[in-house]
């Protein structure tokens, strides 16, 4: 029994010491950043990494002293990818911690919180979403997208296709899921294709978890597109479609946007990944860029067990960079750090060099329309750039 008592005493002492330590560290002025993260639930494949990326960058910024005289405090909660819970979490965090910056788990949360975000909370709001609906300064003045929207990503791919025709007028098929995620860029993409002289020969809509894709592949075979662009999926059914297309002799290049552009899809496809392409707004873990090297070095120090970070981690990291850049600009202008000054600072970001993590960043309409087309390298099981950074005007 004696040992138990001693353990307790030790524990209490440790707790007290911790409390004292945190009290001492509170010398710098705190800037609180709250996040509603989809760590469990349907989005869990990315949620944990998004959270780690954002949290790590903010810790890195503190360590490097990127914001002079201020301490960034990161607070996060799991939302289970449920809009109502996410909104509840948002309100709870605002009441408990009154952060000046928030991070949201989904497009749905962005829409549901918008009326109160605009009228009461007035904090800078970034999120996992690339929805074009949130990159709308009129209805969502406090929201921004960490890079290009899905529409922009389609624009980048269509640009690439227009410059790399296979034979005659390029023909493209859109292959998307019947979700908000899947349908978001399609109307704009159709117009854009028309403007670029690209023919949309097929539009195929499926459920997210479609298993049997034979009919869809047969209609692809009939339409004979040069390029097929997937949208609204993560993994399934992309590998199934590509394999079945190969079996049926469909001679097309398959492309995707951000969420289907992680190493995971190459691993899943194996040799079938040959020729697979897509757009990613960011550089990859293995790329030789100063910002990525810094990220790898930080991971090596703090998480020595980590050998790879997916692109969702990089999105979180980059969102952290945007937050810090906005804060730095506000602090440099000697203004108080509030949602309003931060959102105004965001709009001043022009040709910002991110150290190669992405192209030069200019925020127009609360988004940065830049990205790069990558191609799978099956031998190395990585993505390699197929184009330079493409800027969408």
């Amino acid at each position, binding site marked *: 029994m004696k040992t138990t008592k001693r353990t307790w005493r030790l524990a209490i002492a440790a707790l007290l010491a911790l409390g004292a330590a945190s009290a001492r560290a509170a010398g710098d002025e705190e800037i609180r950043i709250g996040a509603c993260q989809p760590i*469990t639930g349907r989005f869990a494949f990315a949620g944990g990494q998004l959270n780690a990326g954002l949290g790590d960058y903010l810790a890195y910024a503190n360590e490097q002293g990127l914001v002079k005289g201020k301490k960034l405090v990161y607070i996060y909660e799991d939302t*289970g990818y449920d809009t109502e*819970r996410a*909104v509840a979490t948002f309100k*709870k965090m*605002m*009441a408990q911690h009154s952060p000046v910056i928030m991070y949201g788990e989904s497009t*749905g949360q962005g829409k*549901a919180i918008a*009326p109160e975000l605009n009228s009461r909370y007035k904090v800078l709001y970034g999120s996992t979403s690339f929805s074009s609906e949130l990159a709308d300064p009129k209805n969502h003045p406090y929201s921004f997208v960490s890079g290009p929207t899905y529409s922009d990503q389609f624009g980048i791919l269509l640009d690439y296709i227009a410059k790399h025709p296979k034979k005659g007028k390029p023909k493209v098929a859109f292959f998307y899921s019947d979700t908000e995620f899947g349908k978001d860029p399609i109307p704009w993409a159709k117009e854009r294709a028309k403007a670029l002289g690209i023919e949309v020969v097929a539009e195929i809509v499926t459920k997210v978890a479609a298993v049997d894709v034979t009919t869809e592949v047969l209609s692809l075979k009939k339409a004979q597109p040069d390029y097929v662009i997937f949208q609204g999926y993560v993994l399934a059914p992309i590998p199934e479609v590509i394999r079945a297309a190969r079996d049926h002799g469909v001679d097309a290049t398959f492309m995707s946007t951000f969420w289907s552009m992680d190493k995971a899809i190459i691993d899943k496809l194996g040799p079938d990944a040959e020729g697979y392409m897509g757009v990613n707004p960011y550089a990859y873990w293995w790329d030789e860029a100063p910002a990525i090297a810094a990220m790898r070095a930080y991971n090596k120090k703090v998480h020595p067990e980590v050998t790879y970070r997916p692109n969702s981690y990089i999105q979180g990291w980059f969102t952290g960079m945007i937050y810090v850049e906005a804060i730095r600009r506000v602090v440099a202008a000697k203004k108080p750090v509030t949602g309003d000054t931060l959102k105004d600072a965001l709009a001043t970001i022009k040709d910002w060099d991110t150290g190669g993590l992405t192209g030069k960043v200019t925020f127009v309409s609360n988004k940065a329309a830049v990205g790069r087309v990558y191609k799978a390298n099956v031998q190395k099981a990585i993505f390699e750039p197929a184009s330079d950074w493409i800027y969408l005007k």
Partner: protein
Amino acid sequence: MRIGDFKESYAADEALFRTPTARAGLAALLAALALFPLVAGEYLVYLANLVGVLAIGALGLNILTGYTGQISLGHAAFMGIGSYAAAVAQTRFGAPFWIAVPAGGLAACAAGAVVGVPSLRIKGLYLAIATLAAQVIFEWIFTNWTGVTGGIRGINVAPASLLGFRFDTDVRTYYLVTAVAALHAYAAANLFRTRIGRAFVAVRDRDLSAELMGVNLFRTKILAFMISSWYAGIAGGLFVYFAKVVTPESFPLTLSIQYLAMIIVGGLGTIQGTLYGTVFVTLVPEALRSLTQVAQKISPEAMSWFHPMKDILFGAMIVGFLVFEPHGLAEIANRIRRFFALWPFPK
């Protein structure tokens, strides 16, 4: 202890809350509900609104499944119909909320009448599958009838207002939601003291006997579907004003299943149970989440396995209730009440 409880008139015998204790309990509950937003923070009020909205829907499902014995897996779809009808009424026709919300109820009611038709021929699990079809069909309509539903992006709505008073904060919405929920709970409790309500129960217990006693089976079942859908529609209508946006993704099949979980955990065929069940299913995951927040402070590294743990724990709690108290939370509450009825004397 409760003694000297004599009924001296039929009216007293028929009263919904028959004993002074029950009446005092009700008064205390109403007072607590009225005072709640004054002491609770915004977060708790928001959750209370969510519970209120879902409770109305769950009452509807309990009328259909718990009292009438017709299983439905399409309850979320009816809620969706109510939401869309209310949103369209407000945004297209400029209807105020006191027209838009009942319009949602009526629209769901009409849909319920149609979906209920197969119930005359099929029962049990077969009916569950038929209503599942309704869920899938309506979800598809929400997504694809873009002209009316706004497609995948849905419809944004303005806050409700009454005579210039805007229900634009959570506290104001709370009073609206709570009042409507209380009204519907009261109506549901009274329903089963009428001929219709008793007919529902008769159909549940043995439909053949009910028919022999002169209950028109077809009419009764359709009516159960309609009343149940009305509740779902009203819940949906309020949901729009609560969430300020309606999208097809708000009414997935999992919500229908969550509704079933609420009434099963709470107690099939009890009004109080429905309310307990709604509170349990909505708030316990939230409470577990708060617990993980505490754990997060102590050990940030353990989070990767602690986050999924709360779902497992929640599932285990539901299974535990079903095993140890198949009649649901309502029965546990009743047992506690019975214990205190004669307390401090032994039985």
